């Protein structure tokens, strides 16, 4: 339960961190909040030769408005996002999701860049990246490039980064919607989700002009359900909408059984959460 030996370097700039990571020849690991990495080190499931600690890189910690988006630096901690008035007004679904992200002491350390890079299929921030259609700016030895969230998450705990890439910042386009909801069930409040759904809608004259739906805990990556979004915009909204929506959502996913819940239970749970989420979104005062 103690980490194996490693060297430690704490660069002051992102460029220096990329150099240090590249110099490690694939044996190095980035240390951001450490809330997923340290357990792996303690169990010796990860045995890097060098840890590149990003915590001294001030340029990576910010939340700012940029045009029609909110941009968040990769080292911004969960508690900063949770308590940000800008996030609360511009990205309300993300703001609501934050209290479900682990526990107080973990939110005080964990970072958005770390959570996205860890790519846990039942973590809220990867789901929010899919939900908002976020774009990740990544710095590598050849410079910066931008990756869409849908291309970033490849599989459970697997992202598309090269070994010497570092996530620098994440851009979340603001949704100009008038109804939304976030629902989640976990075994213990703050633990990883058994199932979760985020919904956002923009009302039109008769039905919905726009809809956004993402789910997690029911696949190897978080999923955005674009087919369901389209279906929602084609119907008239009435008292039966939450039930129809629930059916569309559950028929769009094929969860796996694991230690924590059977596939049937996850599907049932997601259906109930979908119903509740749509009821809440439609009840939001626009």
């Amino acid at each position, binding site marked *: *339960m*103690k*980490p*194996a*030996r*490693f*060297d*430690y370097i704490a660069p002051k700039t992102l460029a220096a961190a990329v150099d240090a990571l590249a110099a490690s020849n694939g044996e190095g690991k980035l*240390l951001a909040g*450490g*809330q997923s990495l*340290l*357990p792996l*080190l*303690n*169990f010796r499931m990860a045995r890097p030769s060098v*840890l590149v*600690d990003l*915590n001294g890189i001030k340029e990576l910690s910010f939340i700012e408005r940029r045009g029609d988006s909110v941009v968040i630096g990769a080292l911004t901690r969960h*508690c900063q996002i949770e308590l940000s008035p800008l996030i609360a007004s511009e990205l309300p679904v993300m703001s609501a999701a934050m*209290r479900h992200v*682990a*526990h*107080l*002491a*973990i939110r*005080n*350390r964990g970072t958005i860049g770390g959570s996205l890079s860890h790519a846990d299929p039942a973590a809220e921030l990867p789901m929010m990246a899919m939900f908002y259609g976020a774009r990740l700016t990544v710095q590598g030895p050849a410079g910066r490039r931008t990756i869409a969230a849908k291309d970033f998450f490849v599989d459970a705990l697997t992202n598309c980064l090269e070994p010497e890439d570092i996530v620098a910042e994440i851009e979340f386009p603001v949704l100009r919607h008038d109804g939304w909801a976030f629902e989640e069930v976990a075994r*213990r*409040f*703050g633990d990883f989700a058994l199932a979760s759904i985020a919904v956002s809608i923009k009302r039109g004259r008769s039905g919905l002009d726009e809809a956004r739906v993402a789910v997690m805990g029911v696949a190897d990556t978080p999923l955005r359900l674009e087919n369901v979004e389209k279906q929602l915009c084609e119907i008239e909204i009435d008292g039966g909408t939450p039930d129809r929506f629930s059916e569309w959502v559950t028929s769009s996913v094929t969860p796996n059984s694991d230690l924590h819940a059977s596939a049937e239970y996850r599907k049932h749970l997601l259906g109930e959460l979908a119903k509740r989420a749509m009821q809440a979104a439609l009840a939001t005062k626009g």
Partner: protein
Amino acid sequence: MTMNVSVAINGIRHDVSGVEPRLLLSDFLRDTLGLTGTHVGCEHGVCGACTVLMDGHSVRSCLTLAVQVNGSEITTVEGLGTPEALNALQTQFREHHGLQCGFCTPGMLMTGEDLLRNHPLATDEEIREGLSGNLCRCTGYQNIVAAIRSAAAIRREKAR
């Protein structure tokens, strides 16, 4: 590889050389400095027994490296009060019987301190959410919640 760590713990500065990067803050506190009030339970961030304050905010000391707290201020349970002079939160834990075996208590107290200092604590739900990362196998949590509720009420009363 070894490094120097200079850190203020409970207001006292410690300059320690020869620290291996892999040394956890929990082991640094207990084994290097002899501050055994911080308890180690699961050692992978689930139980919360090892919670300490880093620059005023609760962190898991088993998920923090000692070399990462260089230049920081750490508060452990030893920094709250003494057996003769318990601090306000500790007093409420005693009043409300907020502990039985006491193993989780240092972590509960440090999480409670973070909640009292940095969060409004208007409702029991907020207290329970705030404590959700700390496991207690004895009390059923009722008395721990009652102790923090009471400490928050006393603090509000004093602030008036």
